[in-house]
């Protein structure tokens, strides 16, 4: 009797175990495609052979799974995936898995992966973020791969590379150059009888133009968010300063008056209805593709030159658009524009296949076919040979962007050092909610807002330097 019962409980236990086994099997990640024994991790030793003779697709080349991540819009996703397919065709032993997201989803994803020691091999990087990643030891220098010829940089000038260097080592390779601009609607300007702005126009001119267009046509003079911290950076740049000091331990300006004037100007334009109100801006959550400008309800819109493609596309083929430089502060010393690596490629220290990662970066930088797919979507490519090769294929918006950048050449200010690590916290917690909104909603005066900004930002920046 007991024996029987015991047999049954053993049976039940066995059943439970089976169930667990089944569940855990079902939940386990899909089995790896059957290939070489998984213990072949130190592939790096083998890899050079594969790269010196990339054409040879002999079986001796080890199968490698490369991971690549980027952020962007749908256009970029589609094009980049096509480039990856091309890369896989060229190197049949490399299988690429990729992950992409919007800019705001990309960083939580990447930092979480970094915490888990699971960063992809190739990672798109941003000027405001990469130094933090370098300081945390998450990126590797690319210099060895440039030295051994894995990444070829023929004819690429140093000023295009310097933005990706920390302590003289190149950690992030420029994936394309852009600059800041206002896209303007030529038809509206003409109808309102306003001249196309000169390259050295000021914010006073901007305000006059906005008001005049609004008075004549009833549309907004300008759309978009002019409290974008990037525009404020340009404002101070034109005064020979910057948002942050060279060492990143304080703000780059000691006199807040230009910023106070800037806010006052925006309040005036908001009052005159030549600028979209803060209320409507918060309510309608504009994007590059969907805003008052693309809807034909405003005459000017701030965009980086590589984003202009999306703006032109969304605005439709019937509009006559043109790019002009960013206005300067009144009494400016130099241009408010600068050339910026719009984004970078980098290899992470958690990469399982750094060599192949470098190979992909080289492919992206130097392959004519790949760049004929991308068509400068990440900004103007750094390689002069590539630029010449893709020029005939560029869509009108990119031709305009390329011409715009060319016209700026020799007339831009030098780029500021990368943003300090606290930039993100200052913008998210202080600039937007405690300065911009209260000023634009009329709760505090521009002077009080700027004072608060300078005090709080300097406090955070100073605290950041403590060991």
């Amino acid at each position, binding site marked *: 009797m007991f024996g029987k019962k015991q047999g049954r409980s053993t049976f039940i*236990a066995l059943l439970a175990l089976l169930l667990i086994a089944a569940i855990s099997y079902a939940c386990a990640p899909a089995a790896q495609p059957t290939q070489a024994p998984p213990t072949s991790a130190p592939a790096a030793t083998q890899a050079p052979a594969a790269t010196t003779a990339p054409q040879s697709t002999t079986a001796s080349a080890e199968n490698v799974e490369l991971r690549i991540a980027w952020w962007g819009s749908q256009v970029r996703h589609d094009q980049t995936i096509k480039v990856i397919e091309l890369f896989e065709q060229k190197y049949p032993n490399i299988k690429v898995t990729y992950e992409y997201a919007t800019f705001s989803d990309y960083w939580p994803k990447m930092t979480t992966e970094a915490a888990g020691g699971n960063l992809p091999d190739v990672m798109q990087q941003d000027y405001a973020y990469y130094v933090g990643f370098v300081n945390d030891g998450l990126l590797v220098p690319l210099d060895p791969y440039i030295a051994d010829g894995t990444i070829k940089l023929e004819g690429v000038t140093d000023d295009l590379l310097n933005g990706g260097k920390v302590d003289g080592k190149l950690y992030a390779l420029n994936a394309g150059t852009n600059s800041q601009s206002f896209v303007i609607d030529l038809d509206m300007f003409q109808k309102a009888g306003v001249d196309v702005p000169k390259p050295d126009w000021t914010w006073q001119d901007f305000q006059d133009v906005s008001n005049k267009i609004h008075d004549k046509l009833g549309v907004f003079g300008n759309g978009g968010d002019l409290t974008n911290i990037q525009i404020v950076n340009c404002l101070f740049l034109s005064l020979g300063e910057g948002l942050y000091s060279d060492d990143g331990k304080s703000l780059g300006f000691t006199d807040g008056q230009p910023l106070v004037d800037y806010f006052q100007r925006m309040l005036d334009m908001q009052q005159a209805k030549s600028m979209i*109100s803060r209320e409507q801006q918060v*309510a309608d959550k504009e994007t590059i593709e969907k805003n008052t400008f693309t809807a034909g309800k405003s005459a000017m819109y701030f965009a980086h030159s590589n984003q202009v493609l999306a703006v032109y596309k969304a605005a439709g083929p019937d509009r006559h658009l043109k790019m002009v430089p960013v206005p300067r502060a009144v009494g400016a010393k130099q241009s408010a524009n600068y050339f910026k690596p719009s984004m970078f490629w980098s290899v992470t220290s958690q990469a399982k296949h750094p060599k192949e990662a470098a190979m992909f970066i080289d492919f992206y930088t130097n392959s004519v076919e790949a760049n004929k797919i991308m068509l400068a979507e990440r900004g103007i490519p750094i390689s002069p040979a590539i630029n010449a090769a893709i020029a005939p294929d560029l869509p009108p918006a990119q031709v305009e962007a390329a011409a715009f950048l060319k016209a700026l050449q020799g007339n831009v200010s030098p780029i500021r050092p990368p943003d300090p690590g606290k930039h993100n*916290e200052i913008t998210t917690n202080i600039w937007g909610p*405690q300065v911009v909104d209260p000023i634009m909603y009329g709760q505090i005066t521009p002077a009080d807002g700027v004072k608060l900004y300078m005090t709080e930002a300097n406090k955070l920046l100073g605290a950041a330097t403590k060991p």
Partner: protein
Amino acid sequence: MSSLVQPTTQDTPAAPMQRRAKKKSLRHDNRAGYLFIAPWLIGFFGFTLLPMAASLVLAFTDYRLTAAPHFVGLDNFQTMFLQDPRYWKSVRATFFYVFTAVPLRLIFALGLALLLNNTRRGISAYRAAFYVPSIVGASVAVAIMWRQLFGTEGIVNALLWLFGIPPTSWIGNPNTGIWTLILLAVWQFGSPMLIFLAGLKQIPQELYESASIDGANAWPQFINITIPMLSPVILFNLVLQMISGFLVFTQAFLITEGGPLDTTLFYALYLYQRAFVTFQMGYSSAMAWVLLLIIAVFTALTFKFSSNWVFYEEKRD
């Protein structure tokens, strides 16, 4: 497989059974039970208890995901309480939401439950129809639809325009922004309504019958019979809704993003921003534990004062 079974057979002496064997076999039955719920147990310990313990430790560090955490003592709590104006804004917004949205939702749910508590033909179809908003309500799609409805060029403005009322930015205006979220919360009254409905069905009909014989009409009946008899259900709904109210996140995240002027910066949303926008995991862990305390205190207070107004039938006399 055989190696897995080993522990079971090992523990079982092959010797003839003694008195203790019965106890043992009972224990074996328990073990089988535990094995069956093992998937849940693993999930609970691995994905709930362990992370909670970790967050308690992290609350006292400056962990930011990409670098090892450093112990900073009570710094996070000190910053939170003394130097972070946005923290207090988030507390204020959350309390405002809990103390408006939750009572409104419960009143609305009770009202509809009363209307739907009859035996008219097709009543079950009505009940289902009224429950639908809460099935779809928490979804992303509804939040985005809500944005459209109350947008500057949305349907609400279009309707008001018909009556000559000029359009407003409902979401962009600091006075109305939070009310669009409260309205959405009230609209999702389905699950408390169902619970109220079940509670109403439990109230014995004789009570109403004898009350009407005594000449009491609908309102006195509602006040003197329905409310007291339903009070345990009301308490249950109140506690559940209050806790979920403190945790409100999705709607604000999608519709207002905390704006305008931080008036809808709910606690959970600010916690998320600190964790996944500025990557201050230590700070947000500290915030999470304070939220846990706040909820615990309010739940305890609700239970403590419930004896004053909740009526349990079995306690009669």
